[in-house]
């Protein structure tokens, strides 16, 4: 049994230590937000926070997570009481198919927790590991700008 702390709750998980966190979140803990995209750390659909930093849950074996703080999109609120980023994504209608969105929100969450006043260039560089195929990029950027403002900050204009 391996102990994992997810969204503030400790779970004992009966899974092989080599199991990537993604499969435990989805299969053992019933958390659907993080998605399987590539299993290679190339698309970011599986992004969660580990000790406040974005991590590819498809690549991170649970053996490496003892005593570390894991957060998923389910920890950012509920449909009725969404966190700043989910609320901003809803306000901007920043989704088409939406498969990438949970990963986008978690990566943006890491940025805004660290720096609520990033420049536009920093924001785009920060989100670069995460792919969106529907082409919702403009709305995703607008949503993160809106969330930054809601958190008392601002995404600052910058030369690209």
């Amino acid at each position: 049994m391996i102990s994992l702390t997810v969204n503030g709750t400790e779970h004992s998980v009966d899974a092989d230590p080599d199991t990537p966190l993604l499969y435990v979140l989805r299969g053992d803990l019933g958390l659907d937000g993080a998605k399987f995209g590539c299993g290679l750390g190339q698309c970011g659909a599986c992004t969660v926070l580990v000790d406040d930093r974005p991590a590819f849950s498809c690549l991170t074996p649970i053996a490496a997570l003892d005593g570390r703080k894991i957060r998923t999109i389910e920890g950012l609120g509920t449909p009725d009481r969404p966190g700043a980023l989910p609320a901003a994504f809803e306000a901007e209608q920043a989704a088409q198919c939406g498969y990438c969105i949970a990963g986008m929100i978690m990566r943006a969450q890491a940025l805004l927790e660290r720096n609520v006043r990033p420049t536009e260039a920093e924001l785009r560089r920060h989100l670069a590991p995460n792919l969106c195929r529907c082409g919702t990029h403009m709305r995703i950027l607008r949503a993160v700008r809106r969330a930054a403002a809601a958190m008392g900050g601002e995404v600052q204009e910058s030369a690209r």
Partner: protein
Amino acid sequence: MNGLTRRALLAKGSLVVAFASSGPTQAQESEESTSLPGDLDKYPFLDSWIRVDAADRITVFTGKVELGQGLRTALIQIAADELCVSPASIELITADTGRTPDEGVTAGSHSMQNSGMAILNAAANLRVLLTETAAWRLVTSVDQIELQDGSAYGPNGQHVGYGDLVAGFSLHVMAKPDVPRRSKGRRLIGESVPRVDIPAKVSGHAAYVQDIRAPGLLHARVVRGPSFGTQLKQADIDAVTHMPGIEQVVRNGRFIAILAAKEWDAVKASRRLQAAGWERRAAPLPSTDLCDTIRRSPARDIPIFDYPGPPAPADARIVKARYSRPCLMHGSIGPSCAVALWENGNMIVWTHSQGVSPLRKALAELLRLPLEKVRCIHVEGSGCYGHNGADDVAADAALAARAVPGRPVRLQWMREQEHGWEPLGSAMVVELQGALGRNGRIVGWRHDVWSNPHNGRPISAGGLLAGAELDPPFAPQRPRPIPMPEGGGDRNGNPIYAMPNARGVYHFVEQAPVRVSALRSLGAHMNVFAIESFMDEMAQAAGVDPVDFRLIHLQDSRGRAVVETAANRFGWKRRVNGRSGRGCGFGFARYKNLGAYCAIAMEIAVDPDTGGVEVRRAVAAVDSGEAVSPDGIRNQIEGAIVQSLSWTLLESVRFDTGGRTSFDWSAYPILRFPTAPTSIDVHLIDRPGEPFLGVGEAGQGPAAAALANAIADAIGHRLRDMPLTPERIRAALRS
């Protein structure tokens, strides 16, 4: 009877298997020749589309599906608007072969035209029936009746609920043509109603077929060679059967699937089997340059269009150009997935296929079952953008599920399987020749397009990957060209511009060296790229501004309005000078020359050292008939521009003679945030009263052309071969 919905399955955590015995009357063709709007013509009975229960709850049925394009919300809006209720009071059931009308495939930007118009008119018919019945019940005249929030009100406030009213008449009646739409009161059509699917998607709640879970569910992986034309060498099945957690290994001919209670166990076992190695069984590719292969292959020549006119005069100036596009991938972010359940002789498949009815037919043949024993229910998946792995994985899941009666099986492909097996958008070549008269007008035009098929969607077992793997195998499905006016490789090969002495030929190359099928907008991306690039080349030869040159040749008034709006909003007349490392380009088309109009102006900057392109701004104008959800339309057009920039700037499937070699995002790079445009503005030209026109594919061609024209403007050299990569731009700058 609710049948089996994903919601029930998720909410109750239990599986209830039942086929809709009281489902809408299906497959009843209209016997009268009177044409009804959209697919109402195919299913003219009102209860195929709308039902009202005793508690005034309204259920609307569509055979189309939500793909992330916002269709669910738009259809609810349409029905709610006409029935004078709030969107929240309508439940919409999307494609389910047990419950909804068969509206074929959700493709070609047809959903608003076909299903939207059907639901609009079915709802108008129901509104009239409700009003007439209420007038009778409340002993008043129909013009004294007001419908509001599920009740009909008489002049003195007396009212009766819709459910009560519907109990008094039959909804199993034919729709009447020419029923007028509601003419007064607040309208929902034209309002940007928030999408009903977005709250779950931005909060991590179950929204996809990938998220389905149920008691006893088994996870499965399929094992095959790396790409089309290959197969595994002898696999050591026994070695994986005894791996921990493996419930069963299903084998049927060359089809192999591994089932496990835990997903990771299935993944590990599939990797072990895959390690056996593979071999190519198909002939080697003749060349790794598929454009060259297609251009040289035997082809069937199909006329696209023939505009009459006198031959070009001898002094006409002749302009020629050749354009090409490589194979492109759909590239869904989530690999394809399906859940299947085999129970009591019935197969149910939850699938993100765009066409549940054709899939059902193909699955019935594959499984050798009567059609009525197979039911396909659409559940959203990751965006597909055409025919990706959705149908194939549904077959894989069904074959796996058949080995474990009573247990639902969830099968998802791995990333390298989606990249390796999904049908590609065909490589294409277009050659254009134009003649320019002394007055600066086009006096001759010849369009030749070479392409493999764009229509490999399964309609039989041979159209599914697993069909070729079973013993005995099913014969491969033979692709057919899609006739104009829709067209396949020739889609949008007919220019919208008025020109004499013009003709086009589609050189249909049936034999594809790689697996190909429908990719969003089919041939329109390439044909519009070529035509709109060539219009700029002709304009340059004529010494006329590119937008003016288009307007000189454009008679369609809605088209002109779209071009003028995009140009004005962009500030085309005041644009930056080209050949300065900065440049502007314009692109325009009416999708299929039947659908939505879209014009795009774009300003870019080219880094002379790297050849990198930065899109500073894109301004689009769109006419999609009566706009149902303005924000939904903007979302689609913004997405089309960004997706097309990715296709056109960056994308090309790589091959060696053994097949595809792009198995992940490093070998098939797509656009990431730093390359996204600085800004996109979309302007709508609303046409109240005009039929709805889909916008899902309207922007891809114009965006590609606007980009190519902007690059030509910026660097003074024209790039005609996609992708317009930094390497090609650097090479052009050196030349």
